[in-house]
């Protein structure tokens, strides 16, 4: 209990004092998560769309695989990537280990299944009429995909938010692959882990509060960036604008 009170006070102090070390760490966290989620979106949205919209042999199996990858533990991703980019690994000569790039690789691997699975679920429950309508208006495959994703934008956007949350909050891959090097690869979560291992619980919690604040601000910004107003369903009639009953 007393930790939480202490942590709150500490978090406020840190934010008000604009502690440069904390600012730097926070900025690195944001940067790495943003890059990872962009790459994950570029991979996961198209795959999720195909799994959601098209029916083909093996789809059910692939769906299960994607769902399984949602349970990738961060440490396992860390280890697996490690064994590729370690000096002894096949990509060792690029010297990626213990650089921010290593973290990006690991976090992208963590975020991609999330974005894929959620995009898949979002597009799967789309009204098939919309597909036919798009095609009959002269949409190419790519244009149709774009239109349908636009229709499912709330859920697709939700997929990105969930993926962002996953990577900005994860510590296993960042720790294993980045190495928690001060001033270079130390992220908010690895810093939290470090403070925790030092027994500095209040400080660790304060950093956690800062992380959540960042997430909140990012959410709000993106929320306003994407059209705020929810305008409801696709068709015509029968649909009053607000909830009721």
């Amino acid at each position: 209990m007393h930790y939480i009170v202490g942590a709150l006070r500490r978090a406020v102090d840190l934010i008000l004092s604009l502690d440069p070390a904390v600012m730097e760490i926070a900025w690195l966290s944001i940067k790495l998560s943003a890059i990872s989620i962009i790459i994950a979106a570029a991979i996961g949205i198209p795959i999720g769309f195909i799994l959601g919209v098209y029916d083909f042999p093996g789809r059910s199996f692939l769906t299960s695989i994607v769902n399984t990858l949602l349970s990738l533990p961060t440490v396992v991703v860390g280890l697996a990537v490690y064994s590729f980019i370690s000096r002894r690994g096949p990509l060792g000569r690029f010297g990626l280990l213990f650089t921010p790039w290593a973290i990006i690789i690991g976090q992208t691997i963590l975020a991609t299944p999330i974005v894929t699975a959620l995009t898949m679920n979002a597009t799967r429950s789309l009204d098939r009429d919309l597909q036919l309508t798009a095609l009959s208006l002269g949409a190419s495959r790519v244009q149709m995909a774009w239109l349908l994703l636009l229709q499912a934008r709330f859920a697709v956007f939700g997929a990105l938010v969930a993926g962002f949350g996953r990577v900005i909050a994860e510590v296993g891959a960042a720790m294993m692959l980045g190495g928690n090097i001060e001033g270079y690869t130390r992220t908010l979560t690895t810093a939290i882990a470090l403070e925790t291992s030092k027994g500095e619980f209040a400080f660790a919690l304060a950093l956690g509060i800062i992380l959540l604040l960042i997430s909140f601000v990012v959410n709000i910004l993106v929320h306003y960036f994407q059209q705020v107003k929810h305008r409801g369903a696709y068709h015509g009639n029968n649909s009053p604008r607000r909830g009721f009953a």
Partner: protein
Amino acid sequence: METILHVEDLRKSYNGLTVLDLDALSIPRGQITVVMGPNGAGKTTLIRILALLEEPDRGTILLGGQPVPEDEEQRLALRRRMGVIWQRPALFAMSVADNLGLALRLRGWNRKQIRAKVEEYAEMFNLGRLLRKWPNELSGGETQKVSVARSLIYEPEIMFIDEPDTYLDLRNRHLVEEMVASQVERRGMTALMVTHSRQQMSRLAANLVFLQAGQVRWSGQVDSQDPKNWDEELKALLGLAEPSA
């Protein structure tokens, strides 16, 4: 009279039940061909297949004398020369103006051109007041008018129309009929129109196809002016022995 669409030996079944089984059918260019037939006869299925949106189980489709190509690019080019007004209008979750301009946007028109065209058609269909509304704010008839205008706006060469009367009041039914008829006259559009209304058929049809249980029961030219001259078999099919409805 030139044939624009010709199908031969067309078969389609779902879950082993045959819903369409046509020996041969020709649609003449530049005229309105009306398709009639009871619920479940296969009318909508036929449209989906002719508009290249669904693969038949077997059969040949000749478009302007040419078989439909396999190549996706070429099929897209063909699809862009066609339009479908669906039985159940489905608008996209964007403003009415955006819905109207969608097909033009898919074809790469620029903003200004789209805007001009959208305004022209909104005027023609009395939709001016609704341009900034979203689909869930429209009445049934408004939805249907937007859906009709959205397809006519890009002036397709062949238009498939599945029950244009849906949701419309008498004035709007006439308006839609006029719009279709004027595009047929003005620029030689071919139209294939499904309707359950004998009056509408006799107002518009140059040719009639009567489908029943997936098969063509009658097809040929109809003298739209004088039902008395109609073939006896056709009269029976249309139920013209019974008291008129």
